[in-house]
Structure formats: structure tokens, C-alpha cells
């Protein structure tokens, strides 16, 4: 009988007790003895020279402890924030990589760019003094979007004369043009992937502390990857050695990508705490979060799909402009290139794919990874143009997809854009989703809507993602400056309880439960006796953190490897106890046995023996039962599936109602179905948000128009329906748990499904010109009334 706390069980989460009782420990809940508070002086201008920064009046104010400016950082030889990925242009030149000072030096380049930091006894005093810092700005023309950046109206950096960061390509343009010329149909579609703000409900917080006795620096921060922050900040920005720098990311209230990156505030509180010899706390308010958290997406694309007379895809050509914002954030250059163009084959056998991506600097906050990072943009391009092709050639969109799917027996499948897909069954999830939404009944539902004066549309999105980030050798060859392996440490205690340390980080994903289930299953211990610890560089050997749906696929694989080592050593100890050879020992359900005998010893006895090793054969066996493993994946994993959205539009108001949404996903094996479903729900909500509600707007001159929850429409409970989600299992063939990752699927698939449904409904009303996300009532109404 399967365990009720093992792999495959919907175990209720171990972490929930503390959260539902208000006992979570988030960064802002922490306070250090003698703590001071930081407030930042931020630029109100999108682009300006810093003529002077006069802090003397502010410094004399009540409670002010210190004020630092960009010049102080320069004098102290504090470096700028590093970028973790290098992309080369098609002419072989490296991307333009301007310095990214933690406090502006010489110029400010976006609204919110930090000019100075005020440290004071209370937050109120810090904020009041920040207002009193006199900054003389020489306001410059600014470029608030990519069109403006290309116009040359303003130039952000001397080294980027046309504001271009890189001009990159993948594939052979001449070959693709030749194939396109022979196609029976060529479908062309311009698409905008709207700029988004991740908006985890917990704003960012950073507390710096310095121990004068030991010289140890500590940073408490709202991060998805404390070791990455320690590496970037310690080695590149502040020049602090790891043994004197501890980074702690305690309970973190959602991340969605925007808490991956190393931010200026982290480096500043860490550095300044040692200067003032007091702890310093900085808590972002929501307005500051809108201005300073890295944003996501922001692509403009023209895609072309060539098909033969039977509807077979011949070639896909994609031209994309991607906004980098004012500086390069940690992962930014990789998002519209290696995490985007390499996915443009989608689930299809399209033999030729070409992408040209140009990245631009603009006077906006940096843009970087947001849930899905590159893969939602790729799915949006493919799935919108495939749906459009079906409409233009008059084929059922499901049939056109099925006709072009990579077949289940074609794996491993080498795509024309660098990746080798490991496994999949795309027809399976398409069918599953069609059944779930009752696709055959759509015509009747559409007729019923029509009778009620409404428009109804249905839209597919057959997505694929590359997850389990990442095989270090592959990403290294693509310009990543670090490997992306993971680490697990399993400590079996003398009485058989277990503490596991993981280098991944949970900020909602439920690792404390999922990883514990794997351990309970493998070691035969009850889940209550297992604790999973993450988030503190002092406890955990190393780790690359959580993003790219990597935690279970990479961190869980490291755990499986460490458990193999625990089992191997435990077998030796059991063999010693049973006076047998370890090769004869079998281990199942927490019992070691010798086949063909009635000898057996329990896991707990083995654990105790490991720590009280009387009579141990010390030449063969060390005391203790603790093992560690690093795991570097052989390949990415490739979760895939099909989501279908059905919408109803009120032509009177332009309001789009999401009538139904179904998801059929293939994440490989699943450890905790309840948690996986929750991840899918959350992703779908963010994808639907992108399609119908959310859009970050800067005006031409770089002023942030959507700077609060009043202007930036977040999905609320009454904007969404219940979702129907189901899974099919095609195990990942190259990791020990056979898992693929589930965290980003919803955000990747949903935008195209919803927009295909919206544009389908509009098309039935005679609107053939597609509209862009978000499909707000005013946009939909205008489209209907223009026709």
C-alpha cells in the first residue's frame, strides 16, 4: 500500500501551521538590536545629469545617523551590480554592458533610480531627511519605450550610441527566407508582449548587520536565492569573502522571478551597516516596489509562419525587440534570447526557425525574468500565429496543431533551435484538454451566447517550456557566467529523524512538504520526523535557489542522490549489525533485511548505531549518517501541455468574461498533486492577468503611469473563474525522480489561450485585426466599433 505521506500523496503542507496562525517569519518581521532605518532618495526624473547632491541640511536633521551618495560608494571602491549572463551580437561583438552603480553616479536613468541613502534612528526620520537632500538635476530628454529608444531622442550610455544592447540571432536567415518564398501560405502577425510587474504581495526588504566582534556581515533579504546573492554581492560588489558574509532569506512572501536578482538596496545596507556599525533595515513600500522591482516581458514582435498547401509548418521567422530598461539586471540579457528563441519550435516539427532579437536600453526600471521568463513570450508568438494560421486557411485549430505535433515516438527530438526535447506526448494533452472543456459542445454554447446578445470565443495554447534550469555545460556555452546545479544535504539524527538542507528556496512552493515526502518515502520514516531547511547560507553548503521550475527537478535530484548515499552507508551499518555482507542487504519500508533469512533491523536502529558506534569496523566504516550531493542536470526538462480558454464578450461594454479555463499538463512524475495543482492555478491567474488586466505603462518621457494598485490592475477573486486542471504523466527520462517542474506552466500557457479566445470571438463579429494584451473593455469595445 502506498504511504499516505510519500511520493504521489496530496500531503497537507508542513509549513501551513505557522502561516495560518500568523507565525511566519518574513524579513520585515525581523528586527535587530540597535537597528536603524534606511530611506532612499530617488530620482523623480527619467533621465538627468546629477549636477550636485547636497546632503548637509539633511545630515543635520533629527535622528540622522549617516547619508551616503554615489560618490561615497565610488570612494569606497564599491563596485556596480553585476550581470550574470553575456550575450553576443550576430557580428560576434559582446553585448554593451554599462556599469550599474548601486547609487547613481553622474546621471540618473529611470524614475526611482537611487541617488542617496539616508540612515536614521527611525523610519520617519529617515524619510523626512531623505526629502531634505538637495539634488540638482539637469533634466535630459528621455526614452520611455523602445520606439523612443530607437529614435535616438536620447542616449542613455556613451558606449551604446543607438541605445542598443545587442542584436542577436539564432538560425540562418537566408535559408528561412528561401523556405518562406516557397510556402503555399504565409501568415504574418505583429504582437506585443505587454510589460508586467511581478507584484509579490510581500514587498522587498533588506536588513544589513555587522558583527564588530567577528567581522561577520549578515544580510537578511527577501530573496529566491540567498547563495546567489552572497556570491554576486560578496565577490563582485563589496569584495567580502564568503566566510564573513551570511545571507538569510527567511519566509519570503512570493517571488515570481523579481526576487531572484541582486538589488542595490541589498548591497547598500550590507556595506553601510559596517560603516555605521549598527544594523540597517530597509522596507520597500508598494510605491517604491512599482518603481524599483525589476519588471517583466516587454517585447514587440513580428512573426511569420510559412505553411504548405496541406497545413504543414515549413518555417517560422521571428523578429523581436526586447526592452532591457535602464541597466542590465542579473538575468536580463538571457531572457529574450536563450530562454525565448530556443523555445520557438514549440510542440511542432517546424523544420526551420529563425529569430533575430534586438535588445534596447530605455529610461525605465530594468526588465528581467518574471514567471516563465522568455518562455511565455515564445509560447505567445507560436500559439497566436498557429491559431491565426488555422483561421486564415480555414482549418480547425486543434487539427492544425495535431497535424504538426512532434510524435510521441520521436524523442529525444532535436529542434532546429538548439534544444533536444527529452520526452512528451502532445496529442495526449490536447485531447485531454478538448474533453475537459467539451470542445464539441462549443458551437452550441456560442449559439446560446449569441442568442443572449454576447460573443463567445475559444482559444488553444499548446505550450512547451525548458525547465529544470539548468545543465551547466549547456548554459555555460550560451553565455551564463555560472553553473546552475543544486545541492542537498541529508542529516540523519541518532534517533532516526532527518533534517535536510537544500540550496533551493521556497517562497510559496511548499518544499518543506514535497522534499519531506521524498525523504519519508525513501527512508521509511514518518513525514513528521523530517524537516527541510532552506534560506540561510550559514546552514547550507551552497545552492542556486529557486526559479525556472528547477527546485524538484534539480534540487530534488540532488536530494535523491544524497539519499542514495545515505542508503548505501546505512546498508553497510545494517550489514555490520546483522553480520552479513552489505551486498546482501535489502532496504524497504524502513527495514533492512537479508534475503532468505529472518534477519532484519530498523532504520532507526541503524541511525543510532551510526552515532554510538560500539564495535564499528573503523577501517571500513566511519561513524555518523549524513550525506551530501551536488546534482548538475544532463539536460533541461520539458514540461508541456495544452490549455484552453473560453470567453464571453459583452459587445455593449467590451467586457471580457473568462467563462471557462482548462489545463492539461505533463509535468512528468508528481510528488504532491495538491501542491502541483495550486502552482498551476497561480500561474494561470497571472497569465490571465496579463491577457485581460495587467499592463505596466511608462509615458514617452519615462514617467511611470501605473505606479500603484489603483492604476495597475491585479487579478482579484471576482475576475477569475474556477479552473479545471488535470495532468498526464510522461516521466522525465534523465533525472532520478522523473519530474519536470510545474511552477511556470500556467503563466506560460494562459495568455495565448485567452487572447486566441478573445480574438476568435471578435473575428466572429467581423473584427479581423488582432488586438494586443491586455484586452481591456475599452480596447475590445473600440475594436468592435471600428469594424
Amino acid at each position, binding site marked *: 500500500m502506498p504511504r499516505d505521506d510519500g511520493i504521489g500523496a496530496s500531503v497537507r503542507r508542513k509549513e501551513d501551521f505557522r502561516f495560518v496562525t500568523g507565525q511566519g517569519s518574513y524579513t520585515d518581521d525581523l528586527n535587530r538590536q540597535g537597528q536603524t532605518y534606511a530611506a532612499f532618495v530617488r530620482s523623480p526624473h527619467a533621465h538627468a545629469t546629477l549636477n550636485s547632491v547636497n546632503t548637509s541640511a539633511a545630515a543635520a536633521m533629527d535622528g540622522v545617523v549617516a547619508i551616503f551618495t554615489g560618490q561615497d560608494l565610488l570612494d569606497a571602491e564599491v563596485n556596480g551590480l553585476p550581470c550574470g549572463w553575456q550575450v553576443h551580437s550576430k557580428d560576434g561583438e559582446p553585448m554593451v554592458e554599462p556599469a550599474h552603480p548601486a547609487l547613481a553616479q553622474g546621471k540618473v536613468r529611470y524614475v526611482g533610480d537611487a541617488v542617496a541613502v539616508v540612515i536614521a534612528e527611525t523610519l520617519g526620520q529617515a524619510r523626512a531627511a531623505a526629502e531634505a537632500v538637495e539634488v540638482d538635476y539637469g533634466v535630459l530628454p528621455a526614452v520611455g519605450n523602445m520606439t523612443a529608444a530607437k529614435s535616438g531622442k536620447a542616449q542613455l550610455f556613451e558606449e551604446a550610441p543607438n541605445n542598443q544592447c545587442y542584436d542577436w540571432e539564432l538560425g540562418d536567415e537566408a535559408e528561412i527566407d528561401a523556405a518562406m518564398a516557397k510556402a503555399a501560405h504565409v501568415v504574418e502577425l505583429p504582437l506585443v508582449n505587454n510589460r508586467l510587474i511581478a507584484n509579490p504581495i510581500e514587498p522587498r526588504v533588506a536588513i544589513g548587520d555587522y558583527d564588530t566582534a567577528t567581522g561577520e556581515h549578515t544580510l537578511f533579504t527577501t530573496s529566491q536565492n540567498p547563495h546567489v546573492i552572497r556570491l554576486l554581492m560578496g565577490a563582485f560588489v563589496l569584495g567580502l569573502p564568503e566566510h564573513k558574509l551570511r545571507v538569510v532569506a527567511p519566509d519570503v512572501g512570493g517571488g515570481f522571478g523579481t526576487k531572484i536578482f541582486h538589488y542595490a538596496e541589498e548591497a547598500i545596507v550590507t556595506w553601510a551597516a559596517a560603516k555605521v556599525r549598527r544594523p540597517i533595515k530597509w522596507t520597500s513600500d508598494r510605491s517604491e516596489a512599482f518603481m524599483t522591482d525589476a519588471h517583466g516581458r516587454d517585447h514587440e514582435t513580428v512573426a511569420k509562419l510559412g505553411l504548405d498547401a496541406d497545413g504543414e509548418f515549413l518555417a517560422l521567422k521571428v523578429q523581436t525587440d526586447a526592452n532591457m530598461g535602464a541597466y542590465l539586471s542579473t538575468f536580463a540579457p538571457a531572457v529574450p534570447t536563450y530562454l525565448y528563441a530556443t523555445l520557438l519550435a514549440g510542440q511542432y516539427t517546424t523544420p526551420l526557425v529563425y529569430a533575430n532579437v534586438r535588445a534596447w536600453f530605455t529610461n525605465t526600471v530594468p526588465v528581467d525574468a518574471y514567471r516563465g521568463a522568455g518562455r511565455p513570450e515564445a509560447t505567445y508568438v507560436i500559439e497566436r500565429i498557429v491559431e491565426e494560421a488555422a483561421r486564415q486557411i480555414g482549418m480547425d485549430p486543434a487539427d492544425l496543431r495535431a497535424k504538426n505535433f512532434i510524435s510521441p515516438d520521436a524523442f529525444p527530438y532535436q529542434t532546429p533551435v538548439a534544444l533536444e526535447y527529452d520526452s512528451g506526448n502532445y496529442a495526449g494533452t490536447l485531447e485531454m484538454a478538448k474533453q475537459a472543456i467539451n470542445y464539441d459542445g462549443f458551437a452550441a454554447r456560442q449559439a446560446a451566447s449569441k442568442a443572449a446578445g454576447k460573443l463567445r470565443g475559444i482559444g488553444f495554447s499548446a505550450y512547451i517550456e525548458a525547465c529544470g534550469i539548468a545543465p551547466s555545460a549547456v548554459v555555460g556555452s550560451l553565455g551564463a557566467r555560472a553553473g546552475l546545479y543544486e545541492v542537498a544535504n541529508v542529516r540523519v539524527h541518532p534517533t532516526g529523524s532527518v533534517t535536510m538542507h537544500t540550496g533551493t528556496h521556497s517562497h510559496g512552493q511548499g518544499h518543506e512538504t514535497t522534499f519531506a515526502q521524498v525523504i519519508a518515502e525513501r527512508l521509511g520514516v514518518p513525514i513528521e520526523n523530517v524537516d527541510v531547511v532552506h534560506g540561510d547560507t550559514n546552514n547550507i553548503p551552497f545552492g542556486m535557489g529557486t526559479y525556472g521550475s528547477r527546485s524538484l527537478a534539480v534540487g530534488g535530484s540532488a536530494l535523491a542522490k544524497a539519499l542514495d548515499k545515505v542508503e548505501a552507508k546505512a546498508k553497510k551499518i545494517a550489514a555490520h549489525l546483522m553480520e552479513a555482507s552489505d551486498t546482501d542487504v535489502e532496504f524497504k519500508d524502513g527495514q533492512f533485511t537479508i534475503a532468505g533469512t529472518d534477519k532484519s533491523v530498523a532504520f532507526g536502529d541503524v541511525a543510532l548505531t551510526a552515532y554510538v558506534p560500539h564495535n564499528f569496523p573503523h577501517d571500513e566504516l566511519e561513524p555518523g549518517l549524513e550525506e551530501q550531493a551536488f546534482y548538475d542536470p544532463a539536460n533541461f526538462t520539458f514540461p508541456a501541455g495544452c490549455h484552453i480558454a473560453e470567453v464571453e464578450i459583452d459587445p455593449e461594454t467590451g467586457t471580457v468574461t473568462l467563462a471557462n479555463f482548462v489545463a492539461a499538463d505533463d509535468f512528468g512524475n508528481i510528488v504532491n498533486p495538491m501542491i502541483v495543482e495550486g502552482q498551476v*492555478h497561480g500561474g494561470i491567474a497571472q497569465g490571465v492577468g496579463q491577457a485581460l488586466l495587467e499592463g505596466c505603462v511608462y509615458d514617452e518621457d519615462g514617467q511611470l503611469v501605473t505606479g500603484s494598485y489603483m492604476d495597475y490592475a491585479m487579478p482579484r*477573486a471576482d475576475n477569475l473563474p474556477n479552473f479545471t486542471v488535470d495532468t498526464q504523466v510522461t516521466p522525465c527520462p534523465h533525472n532520478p525522480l522523473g519530474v519536470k517542474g510545474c511552477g511556470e506552466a500556467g503563466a506560460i500557457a494562459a495568455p495565448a489561450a485567452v487572447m486566441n479566445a478573445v480574438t476568435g470571438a471578435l473575428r466572429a463579429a467581423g473584427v479581423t485585426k488582432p488586438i494586443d494584451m491586455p484586452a481591456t473593455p475599452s480596447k475590445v469595445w473600440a475594436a468592435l466599433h471600428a469594424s
Partner: protein
Amino acid sequence: MASVSMTINGKQVSGEVEGRTLLVEFLREHQRLTGTHVGCDTTQCGACTIHMNGEAVKSCTMLAVQADSAEVSTIEGLANGDELHPMQEAFREHHGLQCGFCTPGMIMSATALAKRNPSPSEADVRHWLEGNLCRCTGYHNIVKAVMAGARAMNA
């Protein structure tokens, strides 16, 4: 400075605050009741929801002095030791939380709904939670949890 006193989770407390001190600051900073969270500065997210005199209110929208002599309850006051309140139990049972940051506000808001409406429909719950943002769950499981929790509270 002004002095305030109020009952928080059944305990009489008092303190000296500045006139502009928000109730949520009083709870979090003065009383160290950090279960009540701050997610915005425009009264939009609901992470700070508590009960005052039995009604759900956003504690970021009130001054501490406005709560003088009130009965306040926060997420910390809901469970009975290790025994969860039925709404807390429903959130756990139905996986109505992921990162947990919105959760205290959601639960406080939900218990207020359940007092008015012992058996809310899905639409009732979605409408009621309009003032509480969650970025993690897509609301699906929160809605399930609130419906189940309301029934359990009124069973």
C-alpha cells in the same frame, strides 16, 4: 504623542504613539504582532485585515488612536493553542495558501464573511474577497477554503 489603550486578542494593552501612527504599525512594531502584514500603501491589498469590534477592517487605513478602547482581534488570536480555528484549518486542508503573506488578511476577512453568511456561494466569496489580493493561488483554493471554513464555523 498620544496614549492609546485597547483590547487585542482579549488582552488589555496600552501604549504611547504618535498621532500619525497607523494601527498596523501599532500592532506590528509596538505589540510585535507581526502576523498582520503590509502589502501596499493604497488600501488595496487587504494583507493588513484585522477585526475591530467584530468587523473586518484594513489596519493600514486607520490610525492607532482611532482604535482607542476598541476590541481588536488579529490572526494571532484565532487559534486555541495548537488547535486551529475552523477557517485556519480549512485554508490548510484546501491548500488555500502558498507563500502565506496574504493569508492572515484573507482568513480575517473570511471569518467576518462567515459570521454574516454561514453558507456563502462561490460568487459570494469571490465578491467578498474583492479587497484582498493574493498573487500566488489564483484564488481557486482560497474560495474553496472559505466556503468550507464558513460551513465548519457555523456547523
